[in-house]
């Protein structure tokens, strides 16, 4: 044996920290086979950890009391509330273009990736289409989307002819925060927009993926991962995605930021982006057929 098993090993083993050291882990396991007293100790430690999770784990899913978010809503000069502030945060974060988080961040889950987000979206869309029972309740019309702790306004796609018919913010299939917005054009065209807050401030161009009749367009922009899912033709899904992304970006820097309307309206002089087919600025990285 390289060195004797000591308390440090047992503690790390009980805390599940030897996962990346299979050799050491096997040594500890063998040691515990031969030392029932220490095995009992490790088992008790693990029982403590499980008991803590059982006892306190659900707290993170509880709604946050208003008195805790109130200090965050307060603003110099008063007046504006947290909701509009959140929309403004979204705008300014997108505008900063890489400045504010500067790559120092990790997403909550290191394994998280754009592809994992697509999988989540796919599951959420399929569940919703099947009338999933776990769907979060619809949010009040005209109000902001509120996650457990943050809220933001849904993009207004009126210029495209789409109307927001349903919006829900809650947990996605994996317990992650995810908002689901359904837009309908009233003529059979309909799509679902998924939004997920994230840590990194990087961007990723719109990508397209196809699964049967459903096409997905997904991208990263500032503090949000977004995906459009629909039964529209892929080119139209892509056009919608572009429009959504543009609508969620800040207006041109020269124009004063609109103060009163809370929805993330595109600048008034913006042409309706859906009228244009895929633009050169959008890198379509490939159509993945499943």
């Amino acid at each position, binding site marked *: 044996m390289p060195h004797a098993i000591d*308390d*440090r090993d047992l*503690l790390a083993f*009980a*805390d599940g*920290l030897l996962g990346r050291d299979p050799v050491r882990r096997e040594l500890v396991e063998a040691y*515990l*086979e031969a030392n*029932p007293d220490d*095995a*009992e*100790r*490790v*088992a*008790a*430690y*693990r*029982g*403590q*950890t*499980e*008991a*803590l*999770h*059982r*006892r*306190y*784990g659900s*707290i*993170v*899913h*509880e709604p*946050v*009391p208003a*008195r*805790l*978010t109130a*200090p*965050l809503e307060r*603003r110099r000069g008063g007046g504006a509330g*947290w909701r509009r*502030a*959140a929309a*403004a*945060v979204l705008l*300014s*974060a997108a505008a*900063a273009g890489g400045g*504010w*988080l*500067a790559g*120092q*961040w*990790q997403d909550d889950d290191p394994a998280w990736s754009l592809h994992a987000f697509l999988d989540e979206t796919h599951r959420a869309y399929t569940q919703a289409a099947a009338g999933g029972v776990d769907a979060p309740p619809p949010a009040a019309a005209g109000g902001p989307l509120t*996650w*457990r*702790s*943050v809220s933001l306004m849904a993009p207004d796609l009126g210029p495209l002819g789409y109307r927001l018919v349903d919006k829900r913010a809650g947990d996605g299939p994996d317990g992650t925060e995810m908002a689901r917005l359904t837009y309908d054009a009233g003529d059979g065209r309909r799509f679902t927009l998924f939004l997920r*807050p994230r840590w990194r401030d990087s961007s990723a161009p719109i990508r397209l993926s196809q699964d049967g009749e459903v096409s997905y367009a997904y991208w990263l922009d500032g*503090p949000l991962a977004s995906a459009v899912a629909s039964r529209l033709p892929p080119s139209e899904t892509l056009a919608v995605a572009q429009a959504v992304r543009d609508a969620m970006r800040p207006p041109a820097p020269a124009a004063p930021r609109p103060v009163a309307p809370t929805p993330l309206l595109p600048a008034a002089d913006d042409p309706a982006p859906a009228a244009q087919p895929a633009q050169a600025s959008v890198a379509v990285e490939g159509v993945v057929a499943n």
Partner: protein
Amino acid sequence: MDEVKWLIAREIPRLRRYATALVGDAAAADDLVQDCLERALRKRHLWTRRGSVRNWLYRILYNVFVNQGHRRRRVRLQVQLEDAPGAMAQAPRQDQGLICDDIAAAMDRLPEDQRAAIVLTALEGLSYEEAAAVLGIRIGTLRSRLSRGREKLRALYTGHDSRVALRRVK
């Protein structure tokens, strides 16, 4: 509008879990979170943006917790002296050999520094390095707090779960 507020707001659910496990009581935990948030907002210009905002908040909350410890202990002692039968109130608590079915009651009997070490690693999932940084101690100190806390907890808490887990290990 500053984005730090957005980042702080997203951590509130975890802060509530952390605080509840530290103080045991939901209302007291929200008081603690509120104090932590107000302090974080006042001091947010001091956040370097080099570490995670979550661990920064964990650290602020722990400091508030420790600074308020005196007040809280006194309140708890008064309650015990008034409510408990005479013999129990006078004897040192841990010498009574009290065994708890309730993990919260057992945690409550641990010293605050050991409790915090266990909560940060076992419940909040921090690595030993991160937990040591949050508590402002060296990693060796963290390990010894964990060991002592875990052992003390083992004497105090014999939830049936530990026996289930024991069979699984063997």
